[in-house]
C-alpha cells in the first residue's frame, strides 16, 4: 500500500486519505459560460505533476501534494497558502 509523507502527521498509508482531486481555481461568479464549463468539467488529464487535495481522515487535515501521476511519486508538499485565493463576499 502506498504511503503519503505529510508534514506533522508523517508517513501514512493511502487508505487513511480521501482523494480530493486536482487543485483548481474557480472562475468569478459572473464568468462567461465557456470559462464556467471549462472549470466545472475539464481536467488536466494527461500524465504530469499534478497539484491535488488529499484529506487525512484520522486527523481531519487537508494536504496539497504535487504528485507525478505517471510514476505515482509525491514530489512536493505544497503549503496551503500557495493555493489559497480570496473569494468575493457581500
Amino acid at each position, binding site marked *: 500500500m502506498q504511503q503519503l509523507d505529510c508534514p506533522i*502527521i508523517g508517513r*501514512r498509508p493511502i487508505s487513511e486519505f480521501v482523494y480530493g482531486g486536482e487543485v483548481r481555481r474557480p472562475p468569478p461568479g459572473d464568468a462567461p459560460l465557456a470559462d464556467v464549463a471549462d472549470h466545472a468539467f475539464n481536467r488536466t488529464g494527461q500524465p504530469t505533476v499534478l497539484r491535488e487535495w488529499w484529506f487525512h481522515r484520522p486527523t481531519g487535515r487537508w494536504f496539497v501534494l504535487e504528485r507525478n501521476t505517471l510514476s505515482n511519486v509525491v514530489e512536493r508538499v505544497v503549503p496551503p497558502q500557495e493555493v489559497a485565493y480570496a473569494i468575493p463576499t457581500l
Partner: protein
Amino acid sequence: MTLTLETHVDLRLWELVGSGAVDALRAEGLPIPEAELTAVEHGPGFVACTGRNGYLIAGEEEWQQSPQTPPWLLQRSDWVMRLSGARWSDALTELCPHDLGRLPPGGWFMAAVAGVNAWLYRPASVPDSLLLGFDPSYGAYLESMLQSVVRDPSRINPS
C-alpha cells in the same frame, strides 16, 4: 502474558478550540503540549494538541460548554477504552496499519483503527497500556472488534 481490555474508561473530555486556547489552558493551570499531535499527561488523562488552536482535554474536570466567545469549549463524548498488557501493540497489528510498538511512552497518535478514526495515547506513567478514544457511535463496533482480538488466543507475531 495477559492482555486486558477495559471497555469504558471514565474520563471527562473537552475540546478547546479557537484563538486564546493556550492562554485558557494556562489560566486553568493545565499543561500545554509542545507541538501539534503531541500530548502531555494530566492526572488520569492528558492534554493533546490536535491542531492549530485545537486541544483535546481528558481528565476529571467538569466544565460548562463555553460562553459564546473564543476559545470555545465543547463537551466531547468520546468512547474511551484501555488496552493493557505487555503485548498491547501486537494486538493492534490486526486493526491498525501503524507500528504502534514504536509509540513512545507519552506518545499521542491519530489513526484509523479497524476503519474508525481514533486517537491513541500511551500514558507515560502507566507502562504497557494504551488509551483509545473515538466517536461514540462506533463504540459497540470497536468494542466487539477489540474484544475479539483480545480473546483470540491464536494471535501470532513474527518471532
